[in-house]
């Protein structure tokens, strides 16, 4: 049954593919079960992958599970970070791409989704490497030669090096596949890289002293993965401070430079976008905006989640509801939470 569903989605996706977004591979997140991606042939049936990505998929079939997980966590994180904004990163069930048409234009939102999905893959592949699920993770950066001599001589490099490199290969493939680099491709590549950097920047250095009697005469440090929420929060910050850019020819190569020359040029870790975002107020199939009608808003807030801004001045309805809430929860090892049910009256404000 699931397989049938899956095939249907595939057909749909194949039909409607063809627009500019480099995010089609995120459709991996919709693949029903993990078992689908275990044989090389599965790669051909996967939706949203370009030829090059399918090739990478076949060659790295064991990594694809992690890629799928990365895509799922990227979408989850996007929805968490944008839950209080007019565009709330909602996925569309029927349509050409995971997010509908919204990301077809080179907006801030598109920049964020590229960055978070690239970060998601980096994160998931790194995690898969360190748990031993993937046998082909790299062991480079050792000074002398390759493994196993390299491992014996100087140990292996961080898993994030492989995670980042694999992500660079897979996620960037669509943009790199096109011979001529459009400004949109440049933007996507830049934001993908920014996403990978956000993971590396958030790595936490921890150290341990182990000299004579445990003194700090000998000290070893390593980097640990952060929670993905921290990566998402950092990228959300970068989304807020993203710079608008335009394409410029520097020598024989094209480059992105700030539109407003008075702003200082963006750096590798910053997000960049080409077009201003629509206001996402009303449903518009052209832009893919779903509108904010029916969204709940926060009456006391003056920010974007406040009813004034969220409902674009259309006003809101009040719904009074009695909800059952879990309260006085206690966790029992392992693994369930015991809670009491409390009744609570809440007012919900819904945009007109």
């Amino acid at each position, binding site marked *: 049954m699931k397989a049938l569903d899956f095939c249907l989605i595939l057909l749909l996706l194949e039909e409607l593919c063809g627009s500019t977004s480099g995010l089609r591979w995120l459709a991996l997140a919709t693949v029903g079960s993990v078992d689908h991606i275990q044989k090389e042939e599965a790669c051909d049936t996967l939706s949203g992958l370009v030829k090059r990505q399918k090739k990478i998929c076949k060659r790295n079939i064991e990594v694809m599970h992690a890629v799928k997980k990365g895509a799922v966590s990227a979408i989850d994180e996007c929805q*968490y970070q944008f839950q209080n904004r007019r565009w709330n990163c909602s996925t569309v069930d029927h349509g050409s791409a995971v997010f509908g048409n919204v990301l077809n234009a080179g907006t801030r939102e598109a920049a964020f989704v590229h960055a978070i999905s690239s970060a998601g893959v980096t994160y998931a592949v790194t*995690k898969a*490497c*360190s*748990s*031993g*699920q993937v*046998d*082909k*993770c*790299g*062991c480079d*950066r*050792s*000074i*002398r030669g*390759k*493994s*196993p001599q390299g*491992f*014996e*001589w*100087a*140990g*292996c490099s*961080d*898993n994030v090096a492989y995670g980042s490199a694999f992500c660079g290969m897979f996620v960037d493939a669509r943009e790199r596949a096109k011979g001529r680099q459009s400004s949109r491709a440049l933007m996507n590549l830049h934001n993908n890289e920014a996403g990978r950097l956000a993971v*590396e920047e958030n*790595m936490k*250095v*921890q*150290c*341990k002293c*182990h000299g*004579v*009697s*445990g003194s*700090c*005469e*000998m*000290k*070893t*440090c*390593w*980097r*640990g*993965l*952060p*929670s*993905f*929420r921290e990566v998402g*929060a950092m990228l959300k910050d970068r989304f807020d401070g993203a710079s608008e850019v335009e394409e410029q020819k520097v020598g024989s190569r094209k480059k992105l430079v700030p539109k407003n020359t008075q702003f200082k040029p963006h750096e590798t870790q910053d997000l960049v976008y080409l077009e201003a975002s629509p206001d996402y107020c009303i449903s518009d199939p052209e832009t893919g905006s779903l509108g904010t009608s029916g969204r709940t808003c926060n009456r006391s807030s003056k920010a974007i989640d406040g009813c004034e801004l969220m409902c674009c001045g259309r006003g809101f309805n009040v719904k009074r509801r009695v909800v059952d809430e879990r309260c006085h*929860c206690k*966790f*029992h*090892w*392992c*693994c*369930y*939470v015991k809670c009491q049910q409390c009744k609570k009256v809440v007012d919900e404000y819904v945009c007109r």
Partner: protein
Amino acid sequence: MAGVVLETLSNRKLLGLVIGVLVLQVVAFLIGGLIAPAPNSATSLLATKCLGEITEPPLRDWLEPWGQNKCVSIQSIDEVFHDKELVFAVRFPLMRENVQLDMSRWFQNIMAIINVEKVYKNRDLAFPATLHMDARLGYKNKGDDHWTELVRSTETRPLKCEPPEIKDDGYNYHCEVLSLFELGSCHHDYYLVNIRLPMQGGLNSETGRIDDLTLVEIHQNGGFTRVWFALKTFVFPLLLMALAWNAHRVRKLDRQANLLEKSLLCLGCTLVLLDLPVEWLTLWMHMPFMLLFSDIRQGLFYSVLFSFWIIFTGEHLMDQLERNRLVLYWKHLSAVVFGCICLFVFDMCERGIQLQNPFYSVWATTVGMRLALAFIVMAGVAGCCYFLFLCYMVLKVFRNIGAKRESIPSMAKNRRKFYLGLIFRFKFLMFMTLLCAAMTVIAFIIVNVSEGYWKWGADNTVQYNSAMQTGVYAMWNLYVICLLILYAPSHKYKMLQEQSEATRE
């Protein structure tokens, strides 16, 4: 007091020696910095959450996180069925580039740390919390079919976690790392760790939900071990020759060796013990006590070195008092001995017991922690006392030198020569010692700063940490070799004395 080689050595020979020592010193730094990799490497290993049968005793069967007999694993602990048991399993080393790596005997020792990952969601952490674990460590060698148990133990660790800065779902608690085990040898090819968090009788209720365990495995790099062995093997015969030469000189004296000469020989002997490259044997034999043995050797060397400084300063006090007896230094030496005994007891409590149970840690229980801290504080106090004594004595020597300076021109030729020699000897050692001590402190700071502060992405071609380890090691060896050569009794001096006595007659 007899003259030493240093006084009678011609300037040319002295310069030659100094240059030779400096060259060796620079070479030692460069070997560490350019040839050796970093001293240790750490690998983060995310524990796989395996589902196992509930057995009595717990952890009866080995659960492998990956490989041919892969366990049934789950993604999140919410998926645990009630008739199964959750076991965190880690196996190392991992597969890399489709090659099964194996632990090499060159790694010398293995240390493991665990990192608890707790999502800040249920806010269910009590404080103070204690983590209870059933832990089991096993090994397998190439060609073995089954895992062999190395040790199993029930352990507790204090779990100290800070809530995240942003108190929101999805962020992790910041938990302090917990030491898991320490192995003094790396004799086998593959290792497997199984950890179960028991729940009977309300155990682990205060730790709440633990989402993931990350094990960080730290071992000495094979490349560093090779360089280290080579350095030791090279330095050992040099030191042995210097020691033999010094002993020969002392034996040729027509009097009994004095205290200073004896303590210098003693210093040489402890360094010979420290340098003795018995580590080579670990490549063939299983020697889990090497970590403890190295600690004891180093402790012994440093305690004798500290005692030597006291005796040397005391013997150069120039206050006409005949010392030459160890008993007179009991106050100073007891500070050294006491400090060393404290550290020895602490080390025995940690690494000594780890010989029996690698999972053991003194820091795991409050009593043990207080005891360990008490010993370390006592050792620190003894160290401070020692340092004050030494400073006081050195000041006294300098005061006496000042006083002697004025009366020196009016002295008889022989007496003048005696005192000038004494002063030169003392100042030379002071200079050398201060230089070495300063270098050691600088190295210590560099090790601590360079490790904590990382520049990622840039390939480290110069390994500061390794350079400091080999450099400091070579420095103290060269220091002792110099002492053994320069402070050996001089026969030239004796000849000169005999000549002058003959002319007087």
